[in-house]
């Protein structure tokens, strides 16, 4: 067989050598770059920004079943552009990728879709809001939102409604990623109630819980030395939430946003938020930290974050770890953890 057909194997190590994780540290080549002091317009900024190279609509949810068991759910749509100018039809430079996952304490289900832009197979419309790829869909952002995805052995059909506002990260939505100043536009909508049915091999499960949507777009978000990140979204039982990430490169760069129950954010600069691995697990042949000590002393946060299922490996074209977590310590609660760049 043609050696060029070996999709994954050669790509990542080479990419991470010179271009940061998943090539996100490679050049911007004519794309727009985020600027400081942005002003966002909604609903139009809920949609797609083809002038920017990479963008995503990233939804994660912590759910409980009727039996009291914890579940995690993920629905993600990535857009990446091969060139700054957009065209209709097959010459469109937009490429879309969808990831869907369901995590239980014993199992982790993953599905991936790929689609060309410009032909209608995938896309995002801002008003009314719909993000879709094949039959996967995320439509609506206020009340009556619908979330659907399916894989060969799992599926979900959920209803959501928002109970809080959008939250801008960094400086009014301008989120810096390294000391050299690489940045992206980044906001979240972390206040969703979600309920619905998970179709799993052992049977259907009715679940309900909370969901968190991340929206981010940029053209060169990483420095070329940055090999990956660890991203935490934690929802505490007292109603507040914490978003924190740690970028691993020649040096470690951290950012965090503390969100109160009303949705008011407080941004913390590099160094204020720290996360240290406490325990490693063998996941997909790699050593991945699955228990972390997360601290934001300025806010009195000192917690231990533990993965619900250490084997939450996203076995996709670009693999990474993503799964629900439990929080204990100074604050208790649930959340999601994403770890990229572990070889």
């Amino acid at each position, binding site marked *: *067989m*043609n050696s*060029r*057909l*070996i*999709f*994954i194997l*050669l*790509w990542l190590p080479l990419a991470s050598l010179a271009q940061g994780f998943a*090539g996100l540290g490679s050049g911007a080549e004519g794309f727009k770059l985020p600027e400081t002091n942005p002003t966002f317009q909604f609903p139009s900024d809920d949609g797609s920004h083809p002038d920017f190279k990479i963008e995503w609509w990233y939804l994660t949810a912590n759910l409980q079943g009727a039996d009291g068991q914890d579940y995690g759910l993920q629905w993600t749509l990535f857009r990446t552009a*091969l*060139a700054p100018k957009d*065209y209709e*039809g*097959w*010459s469109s*430079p937009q*490429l879309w990728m969808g990831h869907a996952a369901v995590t239980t304490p014993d199992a982790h289900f993953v*599905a991936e*879709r*790929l*689609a*060309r832009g410009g*032909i*209608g*197979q995938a896309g995002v419309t801002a008003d009314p809001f719909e993000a*879709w790829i*094949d*039959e996967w869909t995320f439509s609506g952002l206020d009340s009556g939102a619908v979330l659907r995805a*399916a*894989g*060969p*052995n*799992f*599926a979900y059909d959920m209803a959501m409604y928002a109970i809080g506002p959008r939250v801008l990260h960094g400086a009014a939505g301008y989120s810096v990623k390294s000391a050299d100043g690489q940045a992206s536009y980044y906001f979240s909508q972390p206040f969703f109630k979600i309920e619905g049915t998970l*179709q799993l091999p052992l049977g259907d499960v009715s679940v309900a819980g909370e969901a968190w949507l991340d929206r981010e777009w940029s053209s060169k978000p990483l420095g070329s030395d940055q090999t990956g990140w660890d991203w935490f979204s934690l929802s505490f039982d007292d109603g507040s939430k914490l978003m924190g990430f740690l970028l691993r490169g020649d040096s470690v760069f951290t950012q965090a946003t503390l969100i109160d129950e009303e949705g008011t954010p407080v941004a913390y600069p590099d160094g204020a938020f720290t996360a240290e691995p406490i325990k490693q697990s063998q996941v997909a042949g790699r050593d991945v930290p699955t228990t972390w000590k997360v601290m934001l002393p300025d806010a009195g946060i000192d917690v231990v974050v533990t993965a619900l299922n250490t084997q939450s490996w996203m076995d996709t*074209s670009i693999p990474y770890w993503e799964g629900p977590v439990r929080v204990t310590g100074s604050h208790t609660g649930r959340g999601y953890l994403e770890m990229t760049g572990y070889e």
Partner: protein
Amino acid sequence: MIAVTFAALWGHWWRSPLQLFTLLAGLALATALWSSVQAINAEARASYDAASATLGEVQFDRLVHRDGLPIGQDTYIRLRRGGWLVSPVIEGRIGDVRLIGLDPLTAPGGMAPIGWSNMNDLQDFILADGRIIAAPDVVLDGVESDPAVAPGTAIADVGTVQVLLGRRDEFDALVVRPEQPLGQASLEEIAPELTRQVAQSGSDIGRLTDSFHLNLSAFGLLSFAVGIFIVQGAIGLAFEQLRGTVQTLRTLGVPMQFLVLLIVVELLGLALIAGSIGVGLGYFIAALLMPDVSATLRGLYGADVVGTLELRPIWLASGMAISIGGTVVAASTALWKLSRMPLLVGAQPRAISVIAGRGEKAQAAASAVLLLVAFVLALTADEILTGFVLLGALLIGAALGLPIVLRVLLDGVAQYSRGVIASWFWADTRQQLPGLSLALMALLLAMATNVGVSTMVSSFRLTFVAFLDQRLSSELYVTAESPEQAAYMVDFMTPQVDAVLPIMSAQVQISGRPTDVFGARNHATYRDNWTFLTAGLTPWKDVHTNDAVLINEQLARSADLQVGDVVSIGEQPLAIAGVYADYGNPIGQAIIAEYLFKILFPNVLPLRFGLRLPLEDVGAFVEGLQSEAGLPASSVINQASIKAYSLAIFDRTFTVTAALNILTLSVAGFAILMSLLTLTAMRVPQLAPAWAMGLTRWQLGLLELFRTVMLAVLTGVIALPLGLALAWVLLAVVNVAAFGWRLPMFLFPWDYAQLGGLAILAAGLAALWPALQLARTPPADLLKVFSNEQ
């Protein structure tokens, strides 16, 4: 000590360059044949892999339009949004090149030459002036060459190809990924005009041509076996001569294991040299044969194989491995005997027949067992593999039994001989037999294979000619490019010809087998020319009046159907009225009446037509078609030219095996030559008494010549029935297992006589030189036998 021992051992080869040459030449020739066959096979297989991968039609199910129309792009989007993981494919021709458009993001693994892996490659492939990747044999400006693409094919992004072919927003097929998600909407809901074509594992190109390649490999293996016989002989005799040296070295203090090790090292070195020569020679032979092989495969199976040979490591490695492996096998028994030799036993060269006598019983037993196995398998074998096991058992059993049969024959003749010379001659022949037996076995195998394969080929050709006459009974065949043109042509042609016979077909499943079903018009052409393997009393009448169906042999065999059984197409029941032969077709075929076909498949419109008209009117009519109807020349095919083309293809099919046959026979002749030359040295003490008693040296030489020719004749007599048995196995077992159809066996006595003559000539030529050498032995050498010096 190492150096001295090594020098002593090497000195032996130095002193008998003939043995060294025999060893090297035998091994090299055998390796050459094996590696040339492997080279051809490897090249062909690489092409098939590329073709299968590119087309994807073998590996994956497809969705196609029921009526053969293109699929709209909006249908594709609707399917994807309904949960169908399908990938669009569009195909067309630009000049000679077949252009295929794929979507690298959705194409299942193995189909597209570009993946999600390399963003730069993806960018060039997808964006505006999309890149085209073509097979190395495609000559077009601005295309990139990639040997993994099937021959004659170029691949580009589906959007690029749509633009190049001027067919925006449509596709020819949608490839279905093996894994589909839960909750998928049904096809009837989303796209009722599409139907799902199951992946045709039955027409997998690789499997079809497996038989062809097995055939070739069998020849290669056979040649190699002959070579091993040569090597066995040379090594056996060499070791006999080595005994003196070995004894000397051992009494000087060299340990036995050490000696064996050095001998092994020496042999391996020689095997490496011979193997390298052999592989080089094999590449040369393969390069010569490759264009014929690719033409053959293209014609016979539609398989596209590049006509040039690329140096692939696999057959280089297999050639060397077999050279070394073969030497190890051949040398192991001799080495074992040598290592068991007591230290101080006299190292005189013993009469070879004494050595041979003990092994004979074991050999006879082995032969009997193998022939019994062959007999059992002949009754039960129904797969390619067991067919070849049967062949192997038959050939090896016969080969092992040959010396015993010859000895029995010679014993019988000896009893009736009168006269001193005659008695001595037969006795001497009997004594010579073990030394020559390996060479004679090689000759037997070569001759039997020649008889067997030439019988098979000639039977095939005879049947094929009759088959073509039956199938290509119309004088002209025309193809329209669209249903509208077809309708126009029918109106134009009908008044001018005796009959217009439309050729329309659809693909269905009958008894779970993929089948092409054809609709036949009610016309005398079919009644007059069609022959059946089995049929009712009035098969064509049943087809046209009683909704009966005719099926081909492949379908009958694979679904175990007979005349009188009832099958169904969709809801329509059909009784089988006849089974006909359909050589060369890998899948099932069925024929129903035209009116029934139109009811079952109302949307299929014929684009091909057979025309009946008097032969002398063909030329004028074709001109009329081209000038008045504007039909291009390529759309009109003359039956005579189709037949000639088919036969030409067929003849080339077996050019390869014919070439290998001749090479095998030559190798066998060479084996005889080498055996005789090697024996010559040892013959002197045996012939000296006869010379001393009055036989001249020339008489002795002539007797030697006569002996070899006579032994060859006897071998030939045994080879004939063996070859016919081989032909039967190939026709009745292997071909049936591989293709699903059986050929009748015809006999060709003249061919056999020719072959016999050729073999005797080869044996005679081979014996000429040793006989001459013997005749010119200096009398002093003969005298020395009686003195103490020998």
